[in-house]
């Protein structure tokens, strides 16, 4: 199942500046694991040392907030994930 992961611009330096990464997975957690496998540096931006998603990282499935229990949420073929990273400049 092909899932598109849209990467917020803040995180793109960790994905070789790619805005979209495609993975094959059936849950959000699997999607992120595949992403980390391809781009290991992004792991410390998304997860704490216990493997828990940081509270300021938002996961959206087809534009809808996946909180809570984001990592367990199922995804299906052609779904799109958006990884939202907090920004605060003004």
């Amino acid at each position, binding site marked *: 199942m092909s899932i598109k992961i*849209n990467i*917020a*611009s*803040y995180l793109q330096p960790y994905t070789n500046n790619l*805005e979209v990464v495609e993975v094959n997975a059936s849950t959000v957690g699997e999607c992120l694991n595949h992403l980390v496998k391809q781009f290991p540096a992004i792991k410390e931006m998304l997860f704490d040392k216990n493997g828990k998603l*940081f*509270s*300021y990282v*938002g996961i*959206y499935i087809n*534009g*809808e*907030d996946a*909180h*809570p229990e984001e990592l367990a949420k199922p995804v299906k073929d052609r779904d799109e994930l*958006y990884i*939202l990273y*907090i*920004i*605060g*400049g*003004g």
Partner: protein
Amino acid sequence: MLTIEEQERYDRQIMMRGFGEEGQEKLKRAKVIIAGSGGLGSPASIYLVAAGVGTIRIIDHDRVELSNLNRQVLHWDNDIGRNKVDSAAEKLSQLNRGVKIEAMEETINEANIARLVAGFDLIVDAMDNLPTRFLLNKTAVENHIPFIHGAVYGLEGRAMTIIPGKTACLRCVYRGLIPEEKFPVIGVTPAVIGCIQATEVIKYIVGIGRLLTNRLLVYDGLNMKFTELAVKRDPNCEHCGHLIGEE
């Protein structure tokens, strides 16, 4: 009542569908806080003053620095070293003498925020740091004051409107903080987002259109793309969770 001069000055917006003199009178009576007089605060305040919002209170504790001038368009070369609020108030007063500009040179903190926002109808989040944004969000929620969020990073921007007790708040979207950091930005990004914030303020006050509530607008200037993310109220939200079921 609008004066003859006001009728002429605001003629083009009074013509707009759903606006009319009644809408202009609502703007004239409105009191809006712009928290921050930097990249976002500059365009937001310029357009709200031009539109005829009756009272604008600008809060900022900074002085103008050379490195601000690529984006903080209310401050010019000759203002370097001046208080930002004085620099802003001077230009805004020249733009529209009919608007009352209150310049408050203060650092927003837990001790003074309730006093700073008391009696105001709306708060525009034009801060440059996350802790103060969250303090503003919490205060807006506690005092049931609509809060217009905006933030930028490089060529990316975000905006969302929060109606306390009715829609998701900033803390429902971001449940934690990252350490403060120097952020990259070019002036056109806060120009886009600050204008979106001003648009939301005008719509709310006049009572027209569909507000940017329960939706986080993500602006990607690099690809010239707007993405909308559906945000929902979090029953466990530290700031607004206790209001669920009350309204």
